[in-house]
């Protein structure tokens, strides 16, 4: 077939100004299309329209969120930048962890594709975030997956759970990346819009950092990896940047299809390219495919690029230029290579059997010129595509319903505490997630020091010194629904606490902000409040946001998901041998509760179990969180504690149960003194979700030192029990005794019952 089928060239566009173009179908609004015409001084060609439509989509341009996201930069102090090597704006942030080592990490969403096509959507979510990590010059070393599904017993949930879990495993396991944590939450608010977020972390030496820019006039531009196909066309625009609506046709063709083997080879091939220093700049192809890679590389470098699009290797020869530019086929990378390095580049491609094609070269013309068989089909200033998209100050206002919701505090209680604990621990959100996590490889690479179900995933970076990192992701959509400002701060507080609980010093933050439609002023208010809360909290805790992602339009019809800011915190260990697991092991060790317990059951898992969502979320005290983190990190480093588990969803009841089940070791617990000290009843003591709390197990020989440290830091502590290896039970004295076998059966039976 001729390459010259119906090509809409720039000359043709100039000659036919009146020709109608399908800009609305491609997701552009009238004002946005008018702006494109104004920039170009003529109507766009079909290929140009394709590029602007995907690059100006909400997903790629952040046009609704940009004005708010600036706070993450504005509220960063110099002290917070101390460990930051690369900040927001690149493919992923890079953090200095010492000894010349750096870590890059980021969390992203792949929500919409995963609802349409669960397996491929989730799989390519892993693939995309891993390529972001590679393109910074790092070796990926672990992944995590925060997941949110609709009600566990809804007929559509099993389809999504099976597909999404298998997709994450199918892709991540084949890449040889340990999956070290994440979340699994069920809530009917996510029924028509599951959240599939994916986090990846990579390690590199400081000198190996690579940035995405095309510099050096005359340098050559090469596309390598998988061939370009017809999958994922419009993934960023018509799929990711619109709400679901039954009336519209299926968006399945907009979902990408993954090939993990190709990505594994691509990882090794890229690392060899970096080691040989044969690439000047590199960019992965994700959302908006070649449109994004060419326009971003060009505008971040010397400002111009000349590309011959017929050189792109295709899976399907019938693809049009516009489709080629919009395709989101996976496992592709674009690099800038000096002519002198071209032969060395080709040798590495040949060794790994990776296909490549030289597309063009870097220029200083300030124009991105794309030709099709010698005829110009794109002639644009790349900045107008990549950076000068529309920016909206969307109207927002506090929802009128919120006062009523906040006034509706939870009143329930229970006198049968034993049954209540079993109910809680077998509930969809608190039950064991083994059925999910056992489908992921947590061992590969041999550096996993902690993984699920511990509080954070821990990975060794340096085999000689034990230097390593801890990662945790957290969010609570119910808290954010009740108060989005506080909800964001609570999410950060929990992730920060989890990392400290494992013994690591928290250093940096990534976030994935999942919300409904920004065109709904109430949703937009939730978003604005969330960003404000998160930016404030980052400043108070002294940890900067290094990158992340915004996912809007998470709604089907008029119903939005709960605002769900997933926050990932990265911490560092001098030696991962000092990490603290979430469960106790040694008989006779004292169990201490750190922090104060208030009557805070609004938005709690217990209230959720009773079908209640109202009131105000727990109070956040970030100064207290900082002190608690210091206590936990110091205790771990100095060998004062053998186990630590944070208190969050499910409160003390959940923490005690999980700590006992971790190694199958029981404990005798007394809560009467706690009730008296904090002025609460036994039910509140067990189920309240007050923040700033953790339980630890302390060897007898360390008790004095531990107490002295807590006293010196003025942090409330209370000895609430003792580890008991003889009696395989959680014995809350004066209230109930739960044999661990019974607790374990309740805890582990829920997911298999629904999905096995």
């Amino acid at each position, binding site marked *: 077939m001729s390459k010259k089928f119906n090509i809409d060239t720039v000359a043709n566009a100039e000659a036919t100004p009146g020709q109608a173009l399908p800009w609305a179908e491609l997701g552009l609004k009238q004002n946005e299309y008018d702006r494109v015409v104004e920039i170009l001084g003529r109507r766009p060609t079909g290929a140009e329209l394709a590029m602007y439509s995907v690059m100006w989509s909400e997903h790629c341009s952040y046009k609704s969120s940009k004005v708010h996201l600036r706070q993450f930069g504005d509220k960063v102090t110099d002290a917070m930048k101390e460990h930051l090597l690369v900040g927001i704006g690149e493919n992923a942030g890079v953090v200095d962890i010492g000894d010349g080592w750096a870590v890059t990490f980021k969390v992203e969403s792949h929500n919409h594709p995963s609802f349409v096509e669960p397996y491929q959507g989730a799989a390519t979510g892993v693939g995309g975030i891993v390529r972001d990590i590679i393109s910074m010059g790092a*070796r990926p070393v672990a992944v995590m997956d925060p997941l949110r599904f609709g009600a566990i017993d809804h007929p559509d949930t099993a389809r999504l759970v099976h597909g999404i879990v298998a997709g994450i495993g199918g892709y991540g396991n084949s890449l040889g990346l340990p999956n070290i944590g994440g979340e699994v939450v069920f809530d009917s608010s996510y029924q028509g819009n599951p959240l599939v977020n994916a986090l990846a972390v990579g390690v590199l030496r400081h000198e190996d950092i690579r940035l995405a820019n095309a510099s050096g006039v005359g340098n050559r531009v090469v596309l390598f990896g998988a061939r370009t196909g017809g999958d994922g066309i419009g993934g960023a625009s018509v799929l990711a940047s619109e709400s679901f609506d039954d009336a519209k046709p299926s968006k399945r063709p907009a979902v990408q299809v993954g090939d993990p*083997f190709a990505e594994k080879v691509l990882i090794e091939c890229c690392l060899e390219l970096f080691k040989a220093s044969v690439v000047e700049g590199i960019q992965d192809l994700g959302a908006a495919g070649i449109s994004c890679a060419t326009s971003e590389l060009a505008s971040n470098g010397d400002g111009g690029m000349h590309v011959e699009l017929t050189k792109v290797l295709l899976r399907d020869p019938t693809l049009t230029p516009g489709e080629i530019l919009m395709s989101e086929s996976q496992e592709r990378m674009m690099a800038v290579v000096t002519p002198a390095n071209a032969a060395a580049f080709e040798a590495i491609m040949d060794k790994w059997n990776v296909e490549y094609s030289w597309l063009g070269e870097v220029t200083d013309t300030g124009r991105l010129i794309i030709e099709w068989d010698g005829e110009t089909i794109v002639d644009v200033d790349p900045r107008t595509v990549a950076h000068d998209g529309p920016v909206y100050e969307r109207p927002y206002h506090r929802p009128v319903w919120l006062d009523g919701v906040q006034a509706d505090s939870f009143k329930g209680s229970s006198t049968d505490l034993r049954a209540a604990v079993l109910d809680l621990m077998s509930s969809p959100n608190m039950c064991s997630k083994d059925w999910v996590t056992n*489908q992921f490889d947590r*061992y*590969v690479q*041999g550096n996993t020091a902690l993984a699920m179900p511990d509080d954070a995933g821990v990975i060794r970076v340096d085999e000689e010194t034990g230097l390593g990192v801890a990662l945790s992701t957290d969010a609570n959509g119910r808290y954010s629904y009740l108060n989005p400002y506080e909800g964001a701060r609570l999410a950060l507080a929990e992730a920060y606490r989890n990392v400290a609980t494992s013994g690591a010093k928290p250093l940096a933050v990534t976030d994935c902000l999942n919300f409904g439609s920004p065109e709904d002023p109430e949703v937009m208010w939730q978003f604005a409040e969330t960003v404000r809360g998160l930016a404030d909290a980052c400043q108070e805790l002294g940890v900067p946001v290094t990158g992340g992602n915004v996912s809007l339009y998470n709604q089907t019809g008029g119903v939005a998901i709960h605002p769900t800011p997933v926050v990932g915190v990265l911490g560092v260990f001098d030696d991962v041998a000092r990490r603290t697991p979430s469960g106790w092991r040694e008989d006779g060790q004292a169990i201490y509760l750190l922090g104060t317990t208030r009557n805070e059951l609004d938005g709690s898992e217990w209230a959720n179990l009773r079908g209640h969502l109202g009131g105000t979320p727990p109070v956040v005290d970030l100064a207290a969180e900082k002190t608690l983190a210091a206590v936990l990190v110091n205790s771990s480093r100095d060998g004062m504690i053998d186990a630590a588990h944070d208190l969050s969803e499910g409160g003390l009841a959940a923490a005690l149960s999980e700590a006992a089940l971790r190694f199958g070791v029981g404990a005798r617990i007394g809560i009467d003194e706690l009730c008296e000290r904090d002025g609460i009843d036994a039910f509140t003591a067990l189920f309240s979700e007050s923040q700033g709390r953790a339980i630890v197990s302390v060897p007898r020989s360390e008790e004095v030192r531990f107490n002295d440290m807590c006293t010196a830091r003025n942090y409330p502590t209370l000895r609430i029990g003792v580890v008991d290896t003889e009696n395989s039970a959680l014995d809350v004295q004066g209230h109930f005794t739960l044999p661990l076998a019974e607790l374990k059966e309740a805890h582990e039976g829920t997911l298999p019952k629904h999905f096995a």
Partner: protein
Amino acid sequence: MSVETPLISDFQPFPSASTEGSLAGVRVGVVTFPGTLDDRDAMRAVRLAGGTAISLWHGDHDLRGVDAVIIPGGFSYGDYLRAGAISRFAPLMEQITAAATGGPGALPVLGICNGFQVLTEAHLLPGSMIKNNSLHFLCRDQRLRVENADTLWTSDYAAGEEIVVPLKNQDGQFVADEHTLDELEGEGRVVFRYVGENPNGSRRDIAGISNAAGNVVGLMPHPEHAVEPGFGPDSSARGEVDLRGGTDGLGIFTSVLKKLVG
């Protein structure tokens, strides 16, 4: 042209745990195919056992003078056709097959997980692996019994000894016809058996087998992930609970090193 250490180019070597004797003089090759994942882990295990790990590239025609070969786990060529079905045609597999079937003193070969699958595809071992009966990828700490402690790869264990090592695979269900299974049992070629609940439907709970000469062993679970305190399973077969402290897999690697020194 031989290519140096393809997958571990940025890997920092560290001193081996044991420098005594001449174990360090034993060279154990670890093969990397496109899509191999546990090659660095197998090399680490060899070093922790005291030996010298040598990286071998699938496309080479040279075994680089190694004394033994490990074909590690992963998804070579994506396992899109049948696990191991393409890898077995690699140039290096010709060398391995020839050296492993050379009669007395034949090359010791261990296939772990995908490596086991490659060995069955190469007909160095009988039977085949199909998808787990659960139809899911399964990762868990697995108890095994060493049924035959006389192979080159198991001599550091006692016959009947139990060990705990991680299991992680999608296509781990060992199948063979009844005649072959009877033959394997009769000749003592069932080397490892699953203890407790069968994780994947493998016939007769078989987790690992050997060839008739005993120099080629295939094993589905991953002993190389139970060799270093702090990064292994939470438990060992002795019933101790320790935070990722299980090192029951180390014996596989010390077995072959000691045999080769001896």
